[in-house]
């Protein structure tokens, strides 16, 4: 890959837990991070993002310590202040039991990292039914960025309401200081797609959504969908500096009204099959 900083920036928005699971297929790389069984973030790095992608197996999975990976990817510095200085990146994985090798080069100086991989655990399948999408909105990220900078951070819950009648898309927070509501009209220029079959209101824990803000800051477009079980899928489209697109997706389960720590009530049985 010509510029390691791209990968570092994308993975940084996933760096909210110590461990991440890597899936390699002939189409590219997928990195998954989970928390609490309630939120899952996936970054899709398709093979066209890389200058050269060679993969001969069916698929490979391993887990890695994210802290170490991020230190390695940013070994030559994490700020993008060095304009014009590109750090090139090469990743190699021989197979099961072998470490992941990362080779970075900047200005003639080469760094080689060898990171031991861990056994991957089962990851959660949120079973987000693409067929059962109740509501969907795709909009330019500036809109969302403004909204998220204004919502009350002290509030525990964020309510997302979408409806075919006005107000079409509403974000609300509630706290002891009062409540705030931000409404979006569906006809605005910023909104590209708005499909809403029925009125839905779902609450999500703001603490769980916090990691997605980094991805939001990098993205140019965002899509928000909820399915018939209230599971939230936020997809961020990020444009790298060589014009390629890649996607980061967050799944979050809604907060039940019951006093349940992670919001998984009876109706959700996390299906532990691998994707």
């Amino acid at each position, binding site marked *: 890959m010509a510029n390691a900083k791209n990968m570092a920036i994308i993975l940084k928005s996933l760096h909210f837990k110590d461990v991440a699971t890597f899936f390699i297929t002939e189409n590219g790389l997928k990195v998954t991070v989970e928390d609490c069984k309630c939120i899952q973030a996936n970054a899709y790095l398709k093979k066209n993002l890389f200058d050269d992608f060679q993969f001969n197996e069916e698929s490979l999975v391993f887990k890695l310590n994210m802290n170490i990976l991020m230190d*390695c990817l940013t070994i030559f510095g994490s700020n993008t202040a060095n304009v014009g200085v590109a750090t090139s990146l090469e990743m190699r994985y021989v197979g099961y039991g072998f470490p992941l090798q990362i080779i970075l080069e900047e200005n003639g*100086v080469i760094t080689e990292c060898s990171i031991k991989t861990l056994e991957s655990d089962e990851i959660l399948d949120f079973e987000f039914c693409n067929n059962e999408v109740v509501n969907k909105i795709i909009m330019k990220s500036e809109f969302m960025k403004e909204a998220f900078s204004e919502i009350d951070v002290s509030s525990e819950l964020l309510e997302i309401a979408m409806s075919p009648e006005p107000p079409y898309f509403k974000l609300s927070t509630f706290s002891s200081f009062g409540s705030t509501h931000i409404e979006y009209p569906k006809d605005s220029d910023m909104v590209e797609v708005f499909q809403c079959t029925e009125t839905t209101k779902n609450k999500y824990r703001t603490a769980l959504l916090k990691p997605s803000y980094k991805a939001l800051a990098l993205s140019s477009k965002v899509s928000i969908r909820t399915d018939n079980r209230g599971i939230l899928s936020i997809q961020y489209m990020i444009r790298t500096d060589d014009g390629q697109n890649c996607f980061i997706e967050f799944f979050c389960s809604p907060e039940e009204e019951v006093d349940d720590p992670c919001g998984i009530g009876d109706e959700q049985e996390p299906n532990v099959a691998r994707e």
Partner: protein
Amino acid sequence: MRFRAKVFEISSIHELEKVVSTVAKLVNKTCILRLCKDKVYFISVDRTLSGMQVWCCLQQAKFFDEYSLEGVTAEANEIYLELAPDNLMRAFRSAHNAKSIKIKLAKKHVPCLTVEIDLPSRSLSARSLVHDVPVHVVSRRLWKDYEEPAMPACQVSVELPPLKTLKTVLEKMKNISHIVTVSANNSGQLNIKVETDLVSVATFFRHLAQPNMFLRGDREPDADKFFSVRVDIKKLALFCNSQHITPQRVICNVADKSMLHLYFTHPCTTIQCFLPGTAAS
């Protein structure tokens, strides 16, 4: 015992400020200031196992316009003072725009090095600022503790690449392990490596210059053979972070398995850091 010195040149004041800031960053709280007839030394006091020894030498005449010293006795015409370089640095920092400074050894409630700073002022009366840096006079029988550390027998000597890259790499490596292995060979190659059970990260620098000044005896015939020493990464990172003076060159000498010697030159000052190798941990 008497000591008086004056500096009139603003550039010398700035240079002194930079030297003292560098020393302040490298040592742990206190150091020894040794005043001799032609040289001024800053010596670090760290005696711990992995401690870095710092030896900084300035040619007095290049900095001070007036310098008068009366040592402990006529034969031992030197004064050894223990002080906190941070305090001295603050004094010099206040002198950043001074017209002149005067330094003297005085006894107020405690012995101190008084820095009198003559500042420019718009009004007719002069403005002056006085810093009293407390010092502890080191008695003569302890002077032998502060002799120049012996130069280790090095097998290889390379000139370090620009410190900026090294600094960034070391900062990240610090998160991985607290011991770093520094290796160099006679083909101008330098490797920095950290290793734990989970990960190993190595950075390779190539095409470095190889100065001759430190090698005694014949050079190792096999130019590709590496000599390494394991040192405390925090101290090495500290060294890279502390350089306020733009050095002409920073030379790194490796004494296989025993010591890393860092030497940097500047027209009027030399600073040497001796980093002992640590055993496997």
